[in-house]
């Protein structure tokens, strides 16, 4: 036991003496959360709106007021001819143009039909569909008000409500994603680099010729990164709750247990990488390319899995972060009971045990 402890102590020295790395490890999660939270936000706020309104009546005025009152839109310009529409998009400031048909109020009240056109810039499809979504929301609210005023009292009013994320806050979406990414990166990349460094330096031979058991060497490597990951997990959760007001709706205990399982999985992955390569650079490249990219692209962090082509959906199933992120979304944001994430728990557990077994076996054969 004493042997083991002096080895762990050494690992902590390695980490804390390498000030640049420790800074990156501790600051990266904070920077990522803040970047995703403020800069790369997919949320729509104060989008500039231009209008073309040939009718200028009660109904259109009312709709304009509604848009102006919404925090998502600000009306900046009234167009005088439809030809100006292309012009305002070219300047790039306006994100949405609303075009009313002629005699809008008359048509609406008498025929029950009035046309309105919502024009957005399709070069940014996500942004565009989000804008039209918000705008239609405002319009349908107005329609409901009209129905309540003029129709029979038995009218069924459909109500739009955004489940789980009523304000469509993007923080709700990216927090689980960043958790998945940071944990995998720190555990897998740093563990693999730490082990490969010993090989590269030649100190691994010395360790292996000592009575220290190989399994202890591995465990001692994992302990410091395990503790760092827990620290990072806490940072992310605190930032999420207190800066971005993302609630932890579910059971915190299960959320933490799930994260520990995921950290274990990431450590096994790091160990596996370390058995495959002989240089720190290769370890870094493999972790970067083989872990970072799939997580960014296939885990649902940036692009929703449901809208991927089927083949990519299949591939995403082998990305561990995908299951973790899904489970975190359910546990943390939807606040479901733990039995609804049994599937994710099981998949992650099987992956973790499988990876650990493969890498231990690999580690042993590599020694000979």
């Amino acid at each position, binding site marked *: 036991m004493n*042997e083991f402890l*002096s*080895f762990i102590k050494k690992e902590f020295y390695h980490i804390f003496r390498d000030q640049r790395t420790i800074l990156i490890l501790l600051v990266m999660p904070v920077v990522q959360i803040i970047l995703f939270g403020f800069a790369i936000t997919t949320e729509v706020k104060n989008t500039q709106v231009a209008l073309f309104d040939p009718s200028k009546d009660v109904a259109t005025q009312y709709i304009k007021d509604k848009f102006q009152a919404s925090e998502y839109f600000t009306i900046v310009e009234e167009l005088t001819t439809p030809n100006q529409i292309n012009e305002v998009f070219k300047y790039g400031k306006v994100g949405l143009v609303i075009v009313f048909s002629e005699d809008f109020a008359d048509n609406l009240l008498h025929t029950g039909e009035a046309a309105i056109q919502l024009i957005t810039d399709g070069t940014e499809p996500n942004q565009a569909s989000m804008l039209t979504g918000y705008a239609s929301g405002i319009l349908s609210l107005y329609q409901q008000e009209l129905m309540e005023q003029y129709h029979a009292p038995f009218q069924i009013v459909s109500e739009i409500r955004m489940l789980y994320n009523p304000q469509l806050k993007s923080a709700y979406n990216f927090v689980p994603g960043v958790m998945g990414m940071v944990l995998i990166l720190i555990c897998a990349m740093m563990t693999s680099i730490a082990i490969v460094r010993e090989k590269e330096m030649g100190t691994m*031979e010395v360790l292996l010729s000592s009575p220290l058991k190989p399994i202890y060497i591995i465990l001692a490597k994992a302990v410091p990164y395990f503790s760092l990951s827990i620290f990072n997990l806490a940072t992310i959760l605190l930032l999420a709750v207190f800066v971005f007001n993302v609630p932890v709706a579910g059971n915190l205990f299960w959320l933490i247990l799930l994260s520990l399982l995921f950290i274990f999985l990431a450590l096994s992955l790091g160990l596996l990488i370390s058995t495959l390569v002989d240089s720190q650079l290769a370890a870094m490249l493999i972790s970067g390319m083989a872990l970072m990219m799939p997580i960014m692209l296939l885990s649902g962090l940036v692009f929703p899995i449901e809208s991927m082509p089927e083949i990519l959906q299949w591939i995403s199933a082998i990305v561990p972060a995908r299951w973790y992120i899904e489970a975190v979304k359910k546990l943390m944001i939807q606040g479901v009971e733990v039995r609804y994430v049994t599937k994710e728990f099981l998949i992650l557990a099987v992956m973790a045990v499988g990876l650990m077994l493969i890498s231990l076996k690999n580690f042993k054969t590599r020694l000979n």
Partner: protein
Amino acid sequence: MENKVIYTENLTKKFGDFTAVDHISFSVNKSEVFGFLGANGAGKTTAMRMLCGLSHPTSGKGTVAGFDIFKQSEDVKKNIGYMSQKFSLYEDLKVWENLRLFGGIYGMKTKEIAEKTDRILHELGFEKERGTLVKSLPLGWKQKLSFSVSIFHEPKIVFLDEPTGGVDPVTRRQFWELIYDATDRGITVFVTTHYMDEAEYCDRVSIMVDGKIEALDSPKNLKNQYRTQNMYDVFYQIARKATRVEI
């Protein structure tokens, strides 16, 4: 048998079809400096790795410090020290931290480690460097320290894999003084080297060619046998028989 701290009989290591070490039989006596020579690729490192428990032999027999290298590799490891060809200390640890780490790994008590650290730093004249990071020491100092670390736990045998690569002759001479100090304390030294002046310092040397031991005797006897004045010529006459390409 009592006196033989290393003993092998037809020790062999195969990698697939390739026989890296081919039925070598030799023994090393207590407190002797045994030079293990051979050209690159002759199988020295593989043989040494088997003796250190880093690699499992394919066939043959072998005991190190009285323990069977097949069945008792744990006991073997407790009784040996190893200094690798590459540098074996941690550059980002301080001098005393390296000593404490290796003492700890070999299960020494904290108090014992502290006393021994003081003594070794005194012997090496490194007292001022106690708190220095190893990476800022000169190469020669690092190698001396590295050797002290490898015998810190008082092993019965220490294996040195080309310990003096790249250092100047003066430092090499000092290094060999440390080696003799160790043998005076009863530690057996098993050393590989490419420097023939160092081969002269050994009590006995073996020369490996293509996985086999071609010659084994004291430097004096070898020189007589091959009728030359120095070990370099002995080595050259034996090693040029090699047919194996360097791996």
